[in-house]
């Protein structure tokens, strides 16, 4: 399952993301992090409320589109076609951007990308940059890298600003501060903004408009001052060299038009072949992400235009594990993601744990398939737990605007994880041994009948913990690993006779 993609500057087997750089892997496994998040009642209420609202909004505006399914299929097909000839399209993009006066840089991983951007900022002599909301720069930990070089990076997206001022991490792709409610936001502003030179009215309330106006005052001074802006990209058009950022606030447009220098960091999977292809994605994205019919601020720029906008433009093309993902026949579909976050908003797991439990800037169902592929799975890495962070309910697949079959990728990654773990250790895990035993029983009717009979031993294991009346007895407590079930749920006691035993007893054929 390897495909040589011929990417510039990549000679050997595709590498994974830079270990220890950026935010693709947390410090504890999903079940551990989730347990703590589940106990945070404020978080549960904030996220439950927000996801329910966005979910409803999305469903309403998607329901209005008569050809939604055809649009999804078009989006899926375009992405698959793009991925199948990514190397040549990337070369075309580089050629076009260069021809239009931009400079293209290739970054193998997060460390390389951070070094390129830092050097570019340093070359301008600036000591601060303004940032457009960007997943790619969060992924590589660019803000930390700039800070280490003595450069202040100011997030200008309202939610990213809240996260940054709160010394927090984003917990959602689209709404990074979804875990905060408005009174928490007011407290963050009151605590942080005065120290950055923005005086706050003493009677500041938690009315959304008042909070937004306060952020606006705070940001406006920064926009007018900044000489360098850093953005991500939603799309890049290979045939024209055009870059595009899709946002709702206009703060992105401020960054993209006011400073002298613009540096865009973009994952290599973000490009589309032609200008016309955008018509599909610009219909799919706003309805899926914010539940809007049309996106409010869609900025597009092609290289440099004398006398208009940034006079210096750099495009940093980021791999950071993407080529390795592309080489996986099943997993590569995760690269089709257009970062709408619809899958987060419908996910019953995300809705209850929030985004931080995933330990990556890409949380939720798409994060559960993307993060472990970008970092690679070792058999016992923290991200190895992510493919299991799903009940496989399929709600994510239903809403995905480009029809990424997330459940099937999760199942494939589980298989890869099990196979990796088996190669890494000579002794099978207790789980692997149990699964092997079950498979042996399930391939022979005789052995299967014996196994069923053995399940009645559950009565012995459950000694003293049975409840209910004859014929409907329930088990309340079992030893590990089944204690994970009986901790919160009863289990029916195996009946005296299985279906097949009765069928045989009654002499039926």
């Amino acid at each position, binding site marked *: 399952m390897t495909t040589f993609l011929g990417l510039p500057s990549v000679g050997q087997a595709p590498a994974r993301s830079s270990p220890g750089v950026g935010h693709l892997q947390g410090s504890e496994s999903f079940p551990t992090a989730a347990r703590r998040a589940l106990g945070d009642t404020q978080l549960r209420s904030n996220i439950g409320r927000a996801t329910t609202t966005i979910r409803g909004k999305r469903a309403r505006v998607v329901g209005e589109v008569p050809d939604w399914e055809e649009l999804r299929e078009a989006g899926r097909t375009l992405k698959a076609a793009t991925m199948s000839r990514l190397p040549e399209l990337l070369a075309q993009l580089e050629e076009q951007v260069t021809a239009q006066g931009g400079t293209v840089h290739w970054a193998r991983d997060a460390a390389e990308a951070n070094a390129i951007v830092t050097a570019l900022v340093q070359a301008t002599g600036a000591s601060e940059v303004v940032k457009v909301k960007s997943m790619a720069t969060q992924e590589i930990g660019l803000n930390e890298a700039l800070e280490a070089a003595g450069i202040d990076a100011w997030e200008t997206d309202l939610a990213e600003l809240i996260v940054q001022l709160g010394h927090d991490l984003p917990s959602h792709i689209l709404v990074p501060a979804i875990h905060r409610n408005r009174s928490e936001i007011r407290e963050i502003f009151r605590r942080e903004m005065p120290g950055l030179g923005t005086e706050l009215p003493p009677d500041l309330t938690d009315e959304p408009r008042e909070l937004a106006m306060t952020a606006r005052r705070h940001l406006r001074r920064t926009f007018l001052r900044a000489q360098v802006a850093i953005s991500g990209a939603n799309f890049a058009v290979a045939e024209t060299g055009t870059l595009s950022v899709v946002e709702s606030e206009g703060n992105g447009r401020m960054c993209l038009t006011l400073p002298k220098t613009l540096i865009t960091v973009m994952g290599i999977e973000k490009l589309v072949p032609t200008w016309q292809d955008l018509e599909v994605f610009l219909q799919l994205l706003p309805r899926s992400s914010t539940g809007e019919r049309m996106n409010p601020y869609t900025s597009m720029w092609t290289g440099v235009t004398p006398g208009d906008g940034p006079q210096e433009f750099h495009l940093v093309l980021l791999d950071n594990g993407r080529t390795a993902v592309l080489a996986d026949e099943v997993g590569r579909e995760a690269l089709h993601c257009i970062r709408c976050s619809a899958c987060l908003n419908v996910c*019953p*797991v995300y809705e209850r744990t929030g985004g931080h439990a995933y330990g990556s800037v890409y949380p939720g169902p798409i994060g559960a398939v993307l993060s472990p592929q970008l970092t690679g799975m070792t058999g016992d890495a923290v991200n190895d737990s992510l493919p299991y962070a799903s009940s496989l309910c399929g709600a994510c697949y239903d809403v995905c605007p480009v029809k990424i079959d997330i459940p099937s990728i999760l199942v494939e990654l589980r298989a890869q994880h099990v196979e990796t773990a088996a190669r890494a250790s000579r002794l099978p895990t207790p789980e692997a041994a149990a699964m092997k035993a079950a498979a042996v029983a399930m391939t022979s009717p005789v052995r299967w009948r014996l196994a069923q009979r053995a399940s009645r031993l559950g009565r012995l294991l459950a000694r003293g913990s049975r409840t209910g009346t004859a014929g409907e007895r329930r088990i309340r407590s079992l030893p590990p690993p089944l204690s994970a079930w009986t901790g919160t749920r009863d289990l029916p006691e195996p009946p005296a006779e299985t279906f097949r035993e009765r069928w045989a007893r009654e002499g039926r054929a």
Partner: protein
Amino acid sequence: MRIALFVTCLADTLFPAVPQATVTLLERLGHEVVFPAAQTCCGQMHVNTGYQGDALAVVRHHVDVFEGCEVVVAPSGSCVGSVRHQHARVARRAGDEALAQRAEAVAARTYELSELLVDVLGVEDVGASFPHRVTYHPTCHSLRMLRVDDKPLRLLRQVRGMELVELPQAESCCGFGGTFALKNADTSTAMLADKMRHVVGTGAEVCTAGDSSCLMHIGGGLSRMQTGVRTLHLAEILAATDDPVAGVAGETVPVGVVR
């Protein structure tokens, strides 16, 4: 019609009343039910837990057992979902194209109970009677893998004496997810808590669904919390009549008497 019952390993072992009800129902509708005795399991647990190598042998066994059957029915959306959406994939992943094609042929003749009744047998009123207040939970795999849509509800609406109450946020997963319920027990329980809250809120006596696995989860929680709400499989409600022995109208029997 001669219908082969795919009992599912869970119902066979822990919920034999469910396949029994399936047999009672189909025979009452005039069909012949056969039980291929060599059957065991669809292998979904192996596939979904990452053990596709082990699953391959289980899939092959399932295909061997059901290959000769004209029509196969299972009282489970999830197990039929596995047969239809996973079996061929497991075979292809292992490079066994011949098995994949045989699995696809079996899958094309395998139906979940409500699909068989409504789509194949063309019946919505199965002559059931169940004078209780009931709410229906559409299980994820029947809803989103098989797209059974409102077929179970169409069947339930025809049941005499039954008051069917709508379950709020019905389409949300109950948190079972196979080994997910063990590996992520805390998150699973949080999902279950919301499902139980909605079930109890309906005031229903019975929560029904098309999957014994999801019902084991929801029922396990309802029982632990001593809610007094019980779970019954769709097949058990559809099999229930006023009098299972004589068919005397007007006389009701206790819940789920189909044994």
